Structures are given as structure tokens and as C-alpha cells.
């Protein structure tokens, strides 16, 4: 899952990025509105965390422009907690709204919910054959026994599960699992897929040669 954070306070931006990376997300950052909008329209993020008060281009304007071209889920961060600000945010096309100061757990939960909803899934638990995935607890069970996955491995599984039945291209996987700072070595993906197959069974991920990967 790849997330964009647009926030002008450097310490908050760094803190959020670190926390979300540790949660297994690929995180891109932008410190001003212009940069944020450029990134938001260039990549298909799974979610965007957008501050309202930004230099150059504020959160409302980014949201308004973005909504004309993309449906990317947007979580607004703001210091304004008045009702009309919340209403304005939701009316402009924000999918959710968090008022500063916030708890990280709340941001995590809201982002999970946003991503799940955008994938048309209503439950946190997804059962595929013998494999059960809990997207809230971020863990995976094989025949009801917990399986240890690295954050990156889990992210790969989750992305494929949320796009179950579709063929997911390697480019898509790179775009959603690695952020702008990762070196995109082409065999890194193959290594992750191979490790997951070892842990969850060889048939769990099907390779469509020349196209990408798929979970049936």
C-alpha cells in the first residue's frame, strides 16, 4: 500500500512517514501544496494524508483539482475543528477527516478503513482457501496457525488480496509497495513472492507470465 503525506511541518511529516513505513506502507512525502498535487496526480496512491494549511497551494485546492481526475481516498488533517470546516472538507471530496492533535492509532485505523472501502471490502477478515488475512491486525493465518510475514511481504499479500481475481502487474506492485526512496531493483519483487509462496503455499499466488500476479 502506497501512501502520500502532504504536510508542511517537517517534524510532523517525518514522524508520520516513519510511523506509516513501520506499519508496512510505502510512503511518499510532500512538504508543500504544489509538490503534493504533482505527486498525487502522477501516481495512483492507495490513500493520501493531506494537511489543510499548506504553503503555495492549500489542501482544499489540491482536493478540488484532484477530484476532477482521481478517486484516490483522501484523509484530511487539520487544525480547524469547527463543524463547518469538517462539512466543507467532506463536501469538497475528502473521504475522512482527522483534527490535530491526533493519535497515530486513529490515523492507522482510518487509513485501513479508507483503503478497504476503496477496494470494496467491508470486512477486515478475508478467507482464501486455507489462508485467512486480518487487515486490521495485519496478520495472516494458514490453517488457523499464524504465519510470520515481513511488513513488505504482508503489504504484497494484502494488495493482491484486495485486488483478488484481478491480474496485478509488476508495475502496479512496484508503484504500490515501494516508495519514491526505494531502489526499485526488479528482482526484489520476485524475492518477496518466492518467500510468500514458501510460507503460504506455492498455489497461493499465481504467476501470469508476461502480465503479473494474481490471487484466485
Amino acid at each position: 500500500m502506497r501512501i502520500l503525506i502532504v504536510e508542511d511541518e517537517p517534524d510532523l511529516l517525518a514522524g508520520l512517514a516513519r510511523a506509516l513505513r513501520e506499519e508496512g506502507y510505502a510512503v511518499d512525502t510532500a512538504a508543500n501544496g504544489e509538490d503534493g498535487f504533482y505527486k498525487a496526480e502522477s501516481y495512483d496512491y492507495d490513500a493520501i494524508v493531506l494537511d489543510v494549511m499548506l504553503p503555495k497551494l492549500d489542501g482544499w485546492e489540491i482536493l478540488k483539482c484532484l477530484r476532477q481526475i482521481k478517486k484516490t481516498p483522501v484523509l484530511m488533517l487539520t487544525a480547524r475543528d469547527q463543524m463547518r470546516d469538517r462539512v466543507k472538507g467532506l463536501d469538497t471530496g475528502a473521504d475522512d477527516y482527522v483534527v490535530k492533535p491526533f493519535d497515530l492509532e486513529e490515523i492507522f485505523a482510518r487509513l485501513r478503513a479508507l483503503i478497504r472501502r476503496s477496494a470494496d471490502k467491508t470486512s477486515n477478515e478475508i478467507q482464501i482457501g486455507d489462508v485467512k488475512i486480518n487487515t486490521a491486525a495485519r496478520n495472516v493465518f494458514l490453517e488457523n496457525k499464524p504465519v510470520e510475514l515481513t511488513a513488505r511481504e504482508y503489504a504484497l499479500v494484502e494488495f493482491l488480496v484486495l485486488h483478488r481475481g484481478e491480474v496485478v502487474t509488476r508495475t502496479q506492485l512496484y508503484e504500490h509497495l515501494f516508495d519514491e526512496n526505494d531502489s526499485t531493483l526488479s528482482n526484489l519483487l520476485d524475492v518477496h513472492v518466492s518467500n510468500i509462496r514458501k510460507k503460504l503455499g506455492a498455489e497461493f499466488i499465481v504467476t501470469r507470465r508476461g502480465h503479473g500476479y494474481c490471487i484466485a
Partner: protein
Amino acid sequence: MKPFKSIKWRLQLWYGLILVAVLTGFGFTAYQLERGKIYRQIDDELMRRLSVLAVALHPPAHEHERMGDPPFGGPPPERDMSEGLPDDHFRPQNNFHPPAELAGLFDSADPRKFYFIISFREGGEPVCSTNAPAEEARTDFQNSNAADHPPDPNFLHSATAQTVGLNREIIQQLSPGVTVRVGCTTAPALKEFHLLLAKLAGIGAVILFFGLAGGWWLVASALKPISTIGTTATKISAGDLSQRISIAETESELGQLAAVLNSTFARLETAFVQQKQFASDAAHELRTPVSVILTQTQTALNREREAADYKQTIEACQRAAQRMRKLIESLLELTRFDAGQEILNRVHFDFSKTISDCAELVRPLADERNVKIISELSPLEITGDSERLAQVVTNLLTNAIQYNKSSGEVRVKLDSQNHLVVLKISDTGHGISPADLPRVFERFYRTDKSRTGGGNTGLGLSICKAIIEAHGGTIEVSSEENVGTAFTVRLPV
């Protein structure tokens, strides 16, 4: 509201009473005048009859012959008899018969019932007309004051009018021992008086009614603004400061009061909104640093970390805390200026020296941005708080450098004009848009809508303004987009 405690009722009662008193006074006077007039008419009628009667009793034909003698004084001479006048005419007895002309005047068919009674001192039955009241005919002659009157040649003038029961009478002593009373009933007059009274009372009641009704309307419409003011004030005290008194007429005293109150309410609302905005802005300003601390600490505590990681977290928290400290200090500073509690340490000092010190202080920042500071300072002594004024100069210089273009210029000029010290700090930056320009001194107002920019609290210019105004000076800003911005400070020497 108790009826007699309310102004409306008290006023109503007051002019009600006044009106009643005035109407009663006028009515009484009018009644008296009319009554007097009617009595005079009656008396005139009676006098006319009396004179006719007197003539009948004592024909004027003899008057010239009897000049010098008191008329009717003494027994009549024999000559009178020879003149053909009957003796009983001169000294009327019971058998006096009024002549025909008198009969018409004392006609019993007349509703006024004119009558006469002629009585004699020597006794004997008085001579009465047919209308004469029976009991009056026997009134004791001795009681009549006419008896003591000296004989009067001009007898009609000594006539006495009096009201006896329902009758009006005129008593006249025609000759010693002969008293004539002419009277009539006052019943028709009394009826007229009653009618008059009724009319006056009716007119009075109508006037009173219209007076009270008009007064009520006037007072009610005059006091209506008060209740409007009251209602509005109640709503305002309940917390709705946007309420205003709606009064159509603004010329009356209450209309003017309402206008004054409205402008007071407006100022109150503005102050209240500003205060609320200030508090809410201050809270918002604190939200971001608190978010930093929460995010950083919660991430750090999620798992075991390396020492360098913790250090990074602690440094971020320190920066957030310092930002909050700066914000809190600025807020307190502004609050003290607002409350007039900030004490200025006034000294006499060379302002140009302070300015060049400030310029030196910000030179590293200017060098970093490749901005040139050009000073044009003439030595000027002023009285003021040198530290506070240095704070203003540093703030303005920092702004001028930060919002300048790369390799731009900052010009600092100090001179005096009209007993004022004028400091002008201008830059060659991007300028401030006309929409932002009037608001740059507002608290927390930032032209770029973001928090970053060298730890900018958004209070710097507000504090500058507060300091300059505490010195009795002014600060102004002018700007042209893409040309530059100039701040002008004027201080009294």
C-alpha cells in the same frame, strides 16, 4: 409588570387627573357664567315688571309735581285724588286691581309664573297676583330689609334680588310701608341648568376619552422602542450578539438611544468575535506542535529502538516544545499590551545606533539569502524602550529579508519629519497582495497560509504594532506586488 409601577400607567394617571381638573374647572366656570347670565335675564324680566308695577302704583305724571318731596313719602295730598287717581292706587289696599297691561305681564298662562305681592306695614292682607305662592304671600313684612331703607327717589336701584325656594324675587320698598315683591319660578331655569350640566359633563367625558386614548397611543408608541430595546438586550445577554434593535424612526430620543446602543452592540460583538477568534487561533496554533510530539513519541514507543532513533525523536519534540514556548510568550506579550500592563522601560537613546545594531544582528540571515542591507541613518535621539524598539526593528528587518527575492535589497532609512522620527524599512520582495495588505497586522494572519517560514508565529507584526502604539507612534505598510513592501514607523521624539 404591576399596572401602577409602569411608566405608561403612571403617565396615564397623571394626565388623566390633570385633564379631569382642567375640565372640571372650565366646566364649573362655564356653568357659573351661564347660570349668572340666566339669573340676570330673570332679574331683568323681574325689574321690568317691577317698574311697570311701580308705575302702575305711582304714575310718573305726578312725579314732576312732587319734586323735592320724597316719593310716596307721607300721606298722599288731597290733590292726588283730584287728579283722578284712585286713592287705593296710591296706597294700595287689598282691593288693588292691576291694570290691563299688568295682567299681560303676570299672565298665569306663562310657564315662568310671574307674580307680585304687595304688602303693607300697617297690616292688612297683601295684594297678590294670581300666580303668587300662597305661603310667600304671608311672609312677614317686617323681615324685609326694605323696611329700613330710607325712601329712595331712584327707587328701582335699591331693589334687592333673592332666591326663595324655587322662586326668584325682587323686593322693592316703593314707599314707607309699602313693599312690592315681584317674582317668578326658577323651575324652567333649573331645568336649563341641569341640561347645561349634562351637556358640559358629556363634552368633558368626550374630551377626557379622546385625551386618554390619544395619550395612551402616544405613550405606547413612545415606549414601544423601550420594549424593543429590552427584548434585544435580553437576546444579547442570552448570548446572541448579532441582535440589533430595529427602530424605524431615528429622530426621537429613544431612536437616538437605540442607535447608540446598536453601535455599542456592534463594537461589543466585534470585540467578542475578535477575542473568540484569537483564542481559537491560539488553540489551533498549538495543535500542530502537539501533533508532532504525539506522533513522534507514539512511533518511538511502538518498539525498541536504537539510541540515535530516540535522539531524533527527542530533538523533534524539543523543536515542537520550543515552538510552543515562542507562541505562548508571544501570546502573553500581546495580552499584556492589550491589558496595558506592559511597562516600557523608557530611556533617552540614539535610535540610529539601535537600528545599525539590529542590522548587524540579521546580517548572517541576509548573507545567507544574498540580500543586501542598505542603511541611511541620521543620528536621532529618542525616548522609549530601546529593547522593545530593537525588537520591532529586528522583526521588520527579518521579514524584509525572508520575503525578499534572492539578491534583493533591504533599505533602512531613518530621519525626522514634523517632530516625528520616521523609520522606513523597504524590501524588493514579492510584495503583499491588496487582499492581504489590510490584514497583515492581524493576529495569526499569514499571507502564505502556512505555519512554516522560520518559526513564524503569525504574531510578529501584531506585536510590533502593539509596541509602536504603546510608544504613541504609528506603523503603516504599503506594498506593490513584485516590486516590494515598505513598513513605515513614526514615533514621537
